[in-house]
């Protein structure tokens, strides 16, 4: 158990971070190069003003027409992402482990708050799963990869929750947590989870095209 813990808490953390950062840079560079070759005009008419205007309208809840048309989906997506991103960065356990390994550290959430936010993310994943299964058009568009991705996202939250509550087998849940967290980080640059990085670019692109070229709104 000590050997696995040291591996999952040491070398594999570094490996996951390097693959995440490296993969992100390489994929962005590749996308930029492809765009330059196939659609060089993108760089020409790109406008920071229209890009930012579009990003803002899509990042503020209910600021776009599409969001107002789907209020439940919009609310769940926003709350889900808020908890998904804030919890791991400010979970006490993560900050403490970073202070132990690298020194430094920052403000952290009280455990009780992190716990509720973790549960929120898990319920969000359940919501997305039910939506995929129950809505005919969404089910038709879903591939096995979509379901696997949902499991990969949910896994660190489920196992972290398990470990925190010290249910039986929590030592194993702790190891599973570390491994599944690393898997999630590794998956981000190579799967649809890359939308986290791409979002400002796709919106910026659409915003520039609609705002700068067509003088129209895209929200």
């Amino acid at each position, binding site marked *: 158990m000590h050997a696995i813990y040291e591996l999952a808490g040491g070398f594999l953390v570094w490996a996951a971070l390097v693959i995440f950062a490296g993969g992100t840079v390489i994929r962005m560079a590749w996308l930029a190069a492809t765009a330059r070759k196939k659609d060089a005009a993108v760089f020409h008419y790109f406008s920071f003003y229209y890009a930012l205007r579009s990003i803002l309208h899509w990042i503020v809840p209910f600021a776009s027409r599409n969001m107002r048309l789907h209020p439940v989906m919009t609310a769940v997506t926003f709350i889900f992402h808020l908890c998904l991103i804030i919890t791991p960065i400010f979970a006490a356990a993560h900050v*403490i482990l970073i*202070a*132990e390994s690298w020194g430094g*550290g920052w403000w*952290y959430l*009280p455990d009780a708050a992190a716990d509720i936010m973790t549960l929120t993310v898990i319920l969000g994943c359940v919501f997305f799963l039910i939506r995929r299964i129950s809505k005919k058009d969404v089910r038709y568009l879903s591939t096995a990869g979509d379901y696997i991705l949902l499991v990969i996202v949910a896994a660190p939250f489920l196992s972290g929750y398990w*470990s925190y509550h*010290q249910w039986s087998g929590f*030592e194993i849940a*702790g190891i599973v947590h570390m491994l599944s967290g690393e898997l999630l980080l590794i998956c981000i640059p190579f799967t649809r989870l890359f939308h986290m990085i791409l979002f400002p670019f796709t919106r910026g692109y659409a915003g520039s095209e609609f705002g700068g070229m067509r003088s129209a709104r895209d929200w």
Partner: protein
Amino acid sequence: MAALKSNILRLLVVFLVLAACAAAARAYVTIVEDSAFDDRQMRPQVSFEHNEHNEKAGIESCNTCHHFYENGEKRKNSDSVGMECSSCHYKAESGELELIRIYHKQCKSCHLQKEQGPVQCGQCHRKTGENP
């Protein structure tokens, strides 16, 4: 005069015995409860059968944990027995993270090195109060 002297001596012996008893009683620690965490306890307390732990782990010197530093160097023959870790490692204005860090560092680094003893949060901060 001689009677007074022996009475003082007797008093001194009684005092020393009492002090030793008090120290022994205090050394019989079963949980770590640093007073710096008194009003901010977030996790369950860590059960730590002080004497039994150190016997089982084969730790001979008290200053393996209760260390004493002078001019930045650890003194081999001195210790800080009787002082809480927080009396040297805690400043209220910089928060408790540093104190948590040094507790974890001391306990965990030895457990990892010996490949024995708890290393995960839940193994030390047991909700049931007992260690696995």
